[in-house]
């Protein structure tokens, strides 16, 4: 609400003192996530995720384009996000720039081959689908990464692209009103679980850091898992060093948390599909 240039000294001291006794400023447990609400629709590929007060909206869109010369049979998936002044007016410019969440989510989804780009081909060398995922940060109350990842993945799974039939070299793109649009082929659902390390040596750890905790953290660490309990990516950008023991403990916690988040995504998609089916009658 009010400008947050930096935490006041008593705020820093209090957060650390409380954490020392296993107490967090908003009353959560050390390993507890905030309430996660996932709303799909009304448009196809539109998902808004609410993680506590943090709100991220993901929009997926597709377009027919000419493929890149070196990959004639593959479509593309492009992410874009900007921590604009809506969610982060008071954060000074440096913090807002450095938080390039779209790059992290893009790496996570691309390296784990979550989206089958081969299936995006229409006419090899001529026409392919170019997917665009726009991430909009509506409210920043800490841990944008986890919320953005859930929003992006859920939006990709919720998205339906127009159906296409190809005869000879010609491709016919069917209007969604005539022929039901087709889902993308998504191999798996990578989910991010973020940790914040506080205290001089980073000995105090919490899951799903809140905005005030992020201001005081010495290091941030994100584990990306998929539904088969496999680690897709580990991400740590600077800050105090972490020992192997801490990383192992985080990945263990991440397994359980990722499972819960994946269930939440599946549930949200199921209700959205049910509502659509009901509306279609």
């Amino acid at each position: 609400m009010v400008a947050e240039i930096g935490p006041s000294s008593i705020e820093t001291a209090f957060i650390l003192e409380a954490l020392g006794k296993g107490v967090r400023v908003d009353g959560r447990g050390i390993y507890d996530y905030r309430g996660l609400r996932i709303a799909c629709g009304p448009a196809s590929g539109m998902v808004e995720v609410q993680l506590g007060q943090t709100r991220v909206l993901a929009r997926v869109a597709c377009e027919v384009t000419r493929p890149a010369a070196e990959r004639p049979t593959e479509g593309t998936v492009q992410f874009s996000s900007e921590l604009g002044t809506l969610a982060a007016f008071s954060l000074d410019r440096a913090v807002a720039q450095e938080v390039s969440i779209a790059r992290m989510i893009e790496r996570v989804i691309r390296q784990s081959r979550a989206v089958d780009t081969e299936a995006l081909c229409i006419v090899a060398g001529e026409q392919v689908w170019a997917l665009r995922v726009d991430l909009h940060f509506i409210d920043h109350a800490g841990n944008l990464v986890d919320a953005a990842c859930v929003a992006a993945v859920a939006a990709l799974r919720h998205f339906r692209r127009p159906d296409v039939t190809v005869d000879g070299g010609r491709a016919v793109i069917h209007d969604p009103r005539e022929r039901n649009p087709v889902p993308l082929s998504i191999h798996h659902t990578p989910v991010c679980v973020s940790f914040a390390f506080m205290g001089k040596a980073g000995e105090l750890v919490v899951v799903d850091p809140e905005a005030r905790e992020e201001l005081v953290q010495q290091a941030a660490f994100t584990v990306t898992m998929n539904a088969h309990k496999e680690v897709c990516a580990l991400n740590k950008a600077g800050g105090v060093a972490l020992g192997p023991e801490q990383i192992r403990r985080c990945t263990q916690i991440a397994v359980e948390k990722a499972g819960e988040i994946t269930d939440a995504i599946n549930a949200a998609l199921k209700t959205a599909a049910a509502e659509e089916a009901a509306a279609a009658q």
Partner: protein
Amino acid sequence: MQTFERIHPVEFQRRFLTQDTRLSGREFSQFRPLHIVKGSIGTAQGSATVRMGNTIMVCGIKAEVCEPDVKRPTHGYLTTNVELSPMCSARFRPGPPSDEAQVASEHIHRLITPSVDLTSLCIEENKVVWALSADIVCIKYDGNVLDAAIVALVAALENLKLPEVKVDPATGVVEAGAEDGVQLGIVRRLFPATFALVDDNYLVADADDAEEQMTSASLLVVLDDQGQMVNVWKRGTGIISRDTITECVAAAAARKSEIERALST
């Protein structure tokens, strides 16, 4: 008199407005005369210079060939770009286009697109089409840039000549014929008329720079060849009543004939 104008510009203007006259001596509903020179730029495929009092706009249209959009294989492109640089007025700062310039470019693009038959720009379906880029540069700024820009663009489109083009089927290379080719048939010409609410209660036509400083609302009315309305665009929170807008539409019809005369010279 100069110092009074410089120190109290508002008060100075008000002295005239209260006596139902304007500093420039024009009637409230009187537009500045239009002088149009077509083909003023030799290197452009189509060009025109428009002078409206001390507001001067030059429009140059360059034509290039390119691949059509996958979704609309028979459509060519027409992009418009209004340039309001520090050259034409001190109010514009160097650097990227100002908001005013970007909004003018976008608005003119929305008005001109339905007026031009983009399929007539098609050279070979799904292969090669014409891409016209119209740059409308303001040389001198003295208010009401939008009207001058629209007229300049319409005049330049009427002046546009595209060379004969052949596509070599084997290599796909496009050769342009030497002599000037076909005149592009513009579907519907646009006739703009802008009114400004000055000092919150005087409605004047074709406000100049000084009057624009005191404008709390502006109204653009654009008519087409048949006198039908193409655009009514009222901005600013000053109130222009419903009947005044209807009167402005009538005044715009009068302005249309002035523009037609200037275009046909």
